[in-house]
């Protein structure tokens, strides 16, 4: 048997004393093939490795430099979000959502509020919708910017990282002015928002939308026709449309494979059907197309932001929160001076908002793909089950398929192209 494995302490095949199959060598060569080329090697990447974008562990079985098998191991960041959510009121779950996909916290907040509102049957105001659209699209931009920067580093280009983080800082400033936090925004509440945008904030965002695409143009100049970039990405990690659907992929991963599916277009929420934007769709399903799709999505998000800003100007002074007193706290001034309002405030904060027994699933188009929150309620103020449909978890599941037959160095590029965030994969 010529195959060598790196793993130590292998047991002989068979059952151990507890009746489980004892561990076996990873690869077992065919009897008789003892040429050098058949030697397999085991390479372990992660869980603490700069190119795995978090604490992902990949075990690769190599034949020469070709990947025979890739086994991802996840769960190194499992923090028990879903369990914790069962012990919290609906509004208290909002801060948890910041920390699942921490590259796009505001979009997660919006999804949670929408799912809880669907469960409770609450309509939100138009101004709130517009502000939520702004939050979602800003998140899409910062999330794709991180992807661009880190993928650039993985493929040997450091400059886009500095560019994209500079632009991220500009959005962080806006986020901070709006919510008080750079990263953990906790922006939404059921039936409305935590706060309205401060005075002059729109001008800041307008300034951003007007100048931000220059960075994208620069990245475009640097990458799109760069022969190194094309060589590393074109035809690598290919997935066909049928496979992509069969793997339940979503977001840019699905669209790069040529499936024209975007939750914002196909089951619109927040009035997305009234905005004018295009959904980029790839045709080859390789890394290059995923890059093109994400780059174009940032341009489109910018377009949506500009339209939303126009609407926001029109809706100046319109109410932000719904007037449903079941879910909305009385204004602080009244709570401080009026007994009833104070009791109302106290009860709502301490007892939470009961949701009618039932269940609701709501999916939104997050930067990574379709993020879905699934609530099961039993009439109390805490959900029986809060399920996150994690887009990067489902997208990552096709990694073994993508890596099969690729070169070792391509694995890094393929893994980067999936655009994962471990906080959401492991939850």
């Amino acid at each position, binding site marked *: 048997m010529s195959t060598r494995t790196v793993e130590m302490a292998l047991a002989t*095949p068979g*059952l151990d004393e507890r009746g489980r199959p004892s561990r076996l060598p990873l690869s*077992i060569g065919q009897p008789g093939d003892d040429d050098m080329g058949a030697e397999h090697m085991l390479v*372990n990447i992660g869980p603490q490795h700069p190119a795995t974008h978090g604490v992902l562990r990949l075990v690769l079985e190599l034949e020469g430099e070709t990947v025979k098998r890739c086994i991802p191991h996840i769960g190194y960041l499992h923090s028990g979000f879903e*369990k914790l959510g069962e012990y919290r009121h609906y509004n208290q779950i909002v801060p948890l959502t910041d920390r699942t996909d921490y590259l796009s916290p505001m979009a997660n907040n919006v999804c949670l509020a929408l799912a809880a509102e669907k469960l409770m049957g609450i309509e939100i105001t138009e101004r709130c919708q517009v502000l939520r659209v702004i939050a979602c699209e800003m998140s899409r931009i910062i999330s794709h910017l991180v992807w661009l920067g880190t993928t650039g580093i993985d493929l040997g280009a450091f400059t886009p990282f500095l560019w994209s983080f500079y632009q991220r800082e500009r959005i962080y400033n806006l986020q901070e002015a709006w919510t008080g936090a750079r990263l953990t925004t906790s922006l939404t509440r059921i039936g409305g928002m935590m706060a309205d945008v401060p005075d002059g904030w729109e001008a800041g965002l307008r300034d951003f939308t007007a100048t931000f695409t220059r960075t994208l143009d620069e990245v475009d100049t640097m990458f799109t026709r760069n022969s190194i970039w094309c060589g590393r990405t074109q035809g690598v990690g290919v997935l066909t449309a049928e496979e992509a659907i069969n793997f339940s992929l979503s977001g840019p991963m699905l669209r790069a494979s040529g499936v024209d599916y975007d939750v914002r277009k196909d089951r619109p929420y927040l009035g997305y059907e009234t905005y004018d934007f295009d959904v980029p769709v790839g045709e080859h399903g390789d890394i290059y197309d995923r890059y093109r799709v994400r780059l174009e999505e940032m341009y489109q998000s910018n377009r949506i932001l500009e339209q939303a800003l126009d609407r926001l100007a029109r809706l100046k002074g319109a109410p932000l929160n719904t007037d449903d007193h079941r879910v909305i706290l009385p204004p602080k001034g009244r709570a401080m001076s009026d007994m009833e309002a104070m009791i109302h405030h106290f009860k709502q904060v301490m007892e939470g908002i009961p949701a009618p027994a039932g269940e609701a699933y709501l999916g939104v188009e997050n930067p990574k793909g379709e993020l*879905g929150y699934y609530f099961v309620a039993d009439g109390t103020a805490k959900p029986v089950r809060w399920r996150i449909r994690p887009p990067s978890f489902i997208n990552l599941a096709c990694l073994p398929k993508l890596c099969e037959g690729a070169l070792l160095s391509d694995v890094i590029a393929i893994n980067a192209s999936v655009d994962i965030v471990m906080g959401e994969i492991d939850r």
Partner: protein
Amino acid sequence: MTAVAPALSPSVDALRAAFGSAVLRAAVSCGDSIVWVAADRAHEILAWLKNTPGQTFNYLTDVTAVDYRDPDRPLEVSYQLRSLSRKADLRVKIPLDKAQPLAVDSVVDLWRGADWLEREVFDMFGVTFTGHPDLRRILMWDTYAEGHPLRKDFPLRGNFTRAEQTRQALAANPEAHYSMEELSIADAFNELPEDMKRRLLDGQRGELR
């Protein structure tokens, strides 16, 4: 609040016509159509929903499970299906009596995307998916001994003391368990298809395709 009462998905009637009593009941909640089906025919029903023209639920959005606070209520495994072309959704739920062993047929052969999702349900709820090629814990480590975290009888902070949890965690070997043969989870092993058991036992490598 919308006044229009949302209608049950037409797929439910088609299901009733085709499978009769295997369709236990159906309901609409917050606009989502839900249909409860019997565990022993679930795989058949899901395959029918995927492959029948006019249904074409070709996209598996999510697989999850719900353990209710009421201990007598069955645990439910739920499949969230979608038809991309028809833009329709359907949630198929399989109630499992908690007094019996929790087991349903795996749908990995229909949707490859179910692979990790079912492993997660197995990890978090202890539901066995018969016929799954690689059923083992995914989020917790293989030797995790405290149970299935999302069950309602599992306390938020775990079953062991923090010191014991720390000790067990530090005793885990970060390099252990490399291949699919690491799937040495006792219950999962017994659920494996006969040929895979044989291959594992005489030391052959399993196919993961």
